[in-house]
């Protein structure tokens, strides 16, 4: 089967000059698949971390300590209103320069955090800033009557959050969270700028050698649209599984 596909694409390349080398060239294929894997790892790590950042930030914004609230607001506004590419450069070139280096297994000095690590940190903070706002507005959208009812049943503040506010708020947030995570997956392409061998970077390597920019571009766009479609499908499934009959949030 795989052979047949490879064969057909080879024929397409020879006969019509439409060169999808990733389907028949072993080297290009490995490069592309490795890039895809890196993009997926990068995306998943950023999704998990950015949700964590969002939860912590939303919790800090409800804090009684003024400094915590102001600090979180500053963080959110700063990361939302500056270019993610410059943020990435800021972390990778500037912050990284301040950190000590470590000695790797070959005895050479390498930075404490590599480019993939900085990409994960940078994008997680960027998307996390949006998540904070999303979670906060979700918590605010829970009717105060709900918390009052829980309070009158004798729940503690923490229990009210855990059992009533968070489950309802989460259902309210889910659509905008999904949107933001889709944006995050698209943002991972910026890691190209600091040489993380993700999908775009791998593709650029392939097209600069095989001279098949047009074909790679189509493949790249289709791959990203497919990745986004998978994420959207997962989010929708999640939304559906959390849907409560008769309740419109």
């Amino acid at each position, binding site marked *: 089967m795989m052979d047949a596909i490879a064969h057909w694409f080879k024929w397409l390349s020879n006969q019509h000059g439409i060169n999808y080398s990733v389907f028949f060239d072993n080297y290009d294929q490995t490069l592309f698949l490795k890039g895809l894997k890196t993009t997926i790892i990068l995306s998943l790590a950023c999704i998990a971390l950015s949700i964590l950042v969002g939860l912590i930030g939303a919790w800090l914004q409800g804090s009684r300590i003024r400094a915590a609230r102001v600090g979180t607001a500053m963080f959110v506004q700063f990361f939302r*209103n500056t270019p993610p*590419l410059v*943020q990435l450069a800021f972390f990778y070139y500037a912050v990284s320069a301040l950190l000590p280096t470590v000695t790797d297994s070959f005895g050479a000095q390498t930075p404490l955090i590599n480019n993939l690590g900085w990409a994960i940190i940078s994008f997680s903070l960027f998307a996390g800033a949006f998540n904070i706002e999303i979670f906060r507005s979700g918590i605010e959208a829970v009717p105060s009557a709900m918390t009052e009812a829980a309070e009158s049943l004798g729940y503690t503040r923490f229990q009210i959050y855990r059992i009533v506010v968070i489950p309802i708020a989460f259902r309210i947030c889910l659509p905008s969270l999904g949107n933001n995570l889709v944006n995050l997956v698209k943002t991972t392409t910026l890691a190209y700028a600091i040489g993380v061998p993700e999908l775009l970077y791998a593709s650029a390597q392939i097209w600069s050698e095989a001279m098949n920019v047009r074909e790679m571009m189509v493949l790249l*766009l289709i791959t*990203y*649209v497919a990745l986004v479609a998978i994420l959207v499908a997962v989010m929708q499934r999640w939304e559906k599984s959390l849907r409560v009959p008769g309740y419109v949030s």
Partner: protein
Amino acid sequence: MRPVQSSSLPVLLTPNRTARDPLPSLTAIIQSRLLFVSLLGTFFISCGISAAYSAAGAQPSLSILDVLLKWAPLVFGGFLFNIAVSIASMALGTASGLLLGLGQISPSRPISKTSWFLTQFFRNSPWLVLLFFAMFLLPFDLKIGSVTVPLPAWFKAIIGLALPVMANVAEIVRGGIKSIPLSQWESAESLAFSRRQILWQIILPQAFKRMIPPWMNLYAILTMATTLISVVGIQDSMTLTKAALVAEGRLDLYLPFYMMLLLMFFAYCYPIARLTQSLESRVAVKF
């Protein structure tokens, strides 16, 4: 049991709330000032960190602030170029996005399906990939009859950034039109308006107000995305910052230089975000 006067008004007394202030309230302004001051503070602290860091190593010839001031005009010029690109892309993207958005609600199925597909495709593709797409796949020059118009790289970049803008504007237009209740269409139809008249004279003027805040939001996103052109080799503020750092060759300059660039964008995008927010709440109150 006798029917009781309808008294579903809440009985719990609450102090009279003043109507929502249409403009950003005083506290909001003070808070945003506070935000600005604190951010400037972090900037100088980052300069301080760098200074302390460099003091530990070799003595630099010029102080960080001096170097920063020396390069600032050049970087700022690059920043103005980013703004120019953002305005051009926004104009192009808005015009084509309006068409695409209207195409989505077209009664002709082929047109609406194609428009929908194009919108979804460009909306879900990464901006950087679309930029590459435009840079590599647009021809170097355009032949219109016998006249050959060269397509410079910066122009291709504007088109590349306009593609995702177009798709997002199309979504905003479609959403805005959809938010107008169906009864508006029906009542206009009953008054014998044509479809075109209904759209342009009744629906769009109402939808327009709701489309402004997300459109402004999109503009801010685009402005920040203009830095991507540095990745495809066009000189902008990002390229110039990098060039300046290479020219100086001092590690301690990285933090303040990138901070300066971040703050330039922040100073431009944050006011837009605040304005969008206040417009949003005003629209929410009005409808």
